[in-house]
């Protein structure tokens, strides 16, 4: 309770929590929030700047071949006369006439999903490696830490790129379509690539924590009354590692969302026409001068989401485990 009160008093943590809550809300409810279908193409409204109004009755099939600006004007006129419902492209449309707002909202779902699932994988591997290395020590510690070093020495997102390039081939994608539902099959590659690469920091922190904890008296007492290794680890050691796990996990979500966007930007993650922030930025890059809204809004959404997780993670760290400051910066 005291922790909660401190967290509520922590201003940046609150801002972060609000941003995170918004992102989660959007991710869950995007199919109701989005004004349009994210992949539907309104050809006659392509390259429309933000705020362009679309008459409610217009659709691809109706407007057909008439030249775009004329069609737009006449339809606007018509809708004004009829007093019919009008819909706006609040963030404009892209070259194919897809509504950018809807795509930004739908992309939130992909980003959050990848961020959370990859982080859970990171935590699973990191905690497993960290506790085993710290608790059993000796050769197992040496071996596991060498493996951790090896993964850590892999430059940046390069390992993720290598894994993704393997998993993103047409044959693999085809095989994954059936289990992906309405999501892009590239999401599986992102789960695996990011899940397998971001766990080294967590493993090291948990190992350090376990190393320090296992010398304490309560562990000795637990052993004295006959607890097995598994019970000591699960009941006595891990609950004492919850603080760094929560803090590092929150920050890892931010990192994974950024990496997802970066990989999709390189064309390796989510493939267009599926909506993802990184993919949209890559598509919009050639049109940066003529259609800046295409490149601005997805990036803004991405930056704000990541900022939210980082602010919230900072707050959690200040409240739960300030010593992590020298690790997380």
């Amino acid at each position, binding site marked *: 309770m005291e922790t909660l009160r401190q967290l509520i008093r922590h201003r940046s943590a609150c801002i972060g929590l609000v941003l995170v809550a918004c992102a989660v809300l959007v991710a869950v409810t995007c199919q109701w929030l989005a004004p349009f279908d994210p992949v539907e193409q309104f050809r006659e409204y392509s390259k429309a700047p933000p705020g362009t109004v679309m008459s409610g009755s217009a659709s691809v099939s109706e407007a057909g071949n008439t030249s775009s600006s004329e069609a737009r004007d006449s339809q606007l006129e018509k809708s004004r006369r009829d007093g019919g419902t009008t819909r706006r492209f609040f963030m404009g449309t892209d070259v194919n006439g897809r509504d950018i707002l809807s795509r930004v909202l739908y992309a939130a779902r992909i980003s959050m999903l990848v961020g959370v699932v990859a982080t859970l994988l990171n935590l699973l591997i990191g905690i497993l490696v960290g506790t085993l290395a710290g608790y059993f020590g000796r050769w197992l510690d040496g071996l596991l830490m060498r*493996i951790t070093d090896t993964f850590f020495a892999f430059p940046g997102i390069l390992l993720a790129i290598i894994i993704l390039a393997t998993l993103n081939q047409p044959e693999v994608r085809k095989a994954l379509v059936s289990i992906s539902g309405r999501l892009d099959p590239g999401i599986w590659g992102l789960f695996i690539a990011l899940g397998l690469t971001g766990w080294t920091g967590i493993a090291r922190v948990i190992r350090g924590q376990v190393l320090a904890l296992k010398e304490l008296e309560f562990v000795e007492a637990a052993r004295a009354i006959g607890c097995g290794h598994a019970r000591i680890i699960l009941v006595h050691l891990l609950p004492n590692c919850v603080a760094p796990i929560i803090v590092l996990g929150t920050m890892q979500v931010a990192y994974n969302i950024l990496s997802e966007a*970066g990989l999709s930007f390189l064309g390796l993650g989510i493939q267009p026409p599926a909506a993802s922030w990184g993919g949209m930025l890559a598509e919009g890059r050639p049109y940066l001068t003529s259609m800046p809204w295409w490149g601005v809004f997805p990036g803004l959404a991405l930056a704000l989401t990541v900022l939210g997780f*980082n602010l919230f993670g900072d707050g959690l760290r200040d409240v739960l485990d300030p010593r992590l400051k*020298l690790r997380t910066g």
Partner: protein
Amino acid sequence: MSDDQKPTGGATGRSLAALGGGGVSPPVTSVMEHGGVTPQLPPPGSRRHGTYRLPPLPPFLRFILLRLLAAIPVLIGVTLICFAIMVAAPGDPVRIIMGQHYNPQIAENLRVQMGLDKPFAVQYGLFLSRVVHGDLGRSYVQRTEVAPYLAQKFVNTLLLTLIAMIIAVGCGMVAGIVSAAWPRSPADYLLMLLAVAGISMPVFWLGMMLQLLFASRLGWLPVSDMSYSGSLDSLWSQYQSPLVVWWMYWGRHFVLPGVTLATVPMAIIARLTRSSMLEVMGQDYIRTARAKGLSYPRVVVVHALRNALIPIVTVIGNNFALLLTGAVLTETVFSWPGMGRAMVEAITQYDYPMVMGGVMLMAGVFVAVNLLVDMTYGLIDPRVRYG
């Protein structure tokens, strides 16, 4: 490697002990001193009996040697992971090389010639033996030797990274010091807000926004590329002054990518400098220094900063390596002919030799930079002992 040598070391240790230690013939000692690890790993036998101790290497050299040895399994592990993923990948490099002129018969020959028909372990062994002989092989796609191609790309990335790192360390440390010197001041809040925005910034988006503002809208700086697209002579005739020509040809091309790449490490360094400094500022010796009547800036910079430097240097090292290797996105945005982009291209084109060479180079740089960082600890803090 060291495991194989241990018993030999033990045996020699014991045999020397049997000689009585006094009559050691010069050739034996010299062999042992040049034998790498052997002298500084005390053989288990001799330790137990305590009859003879080999003269130890100076701790600093011993430390470097041990770290270099520890890097070998890391490098092997990195290449092994990379190799395993690529061999397991469904893509067929022969198909890539032959492109449209695919012919099953020739493809089969090529596969044999490239050793792709052999089992995984053999392929990896062949790769390792080539690397040990200093041969990284030929690129499947670029039709050149891997090593010179990568070297050229690497230099471009190194230039960009150095500039980014200078910006990041300079601005980041100043911001962190200011924040820590006046904690909870408006300046502190502002700087730390900027810093958290910085670590949350998608670098490629930042790059795009900088391009939009400074290149497209204001036209102050070039949008992309590493150097002026026209000829140097035309610039000379236009500007005469070497400095201006340098600026027009090279200098201004480095500004936007440098700033873009610097943002994230700058933010990290600023935050870490602040927390590390604040930790130190609470210590007794800072109060003593203040009580002596030293000025506040002097206490902050001389007494606090030096003691706060170790975690900062560690992070600088980590980030330098990460930058050098992770400049992929910045290079893509700014069409920079660097290592990161070359690697992404190579990976997506299944150019195995190129990928393996690049990964090894990057991992090697990572290990080397981290070793350098550890070596500077002793310079920063004389209390640090190696060994």
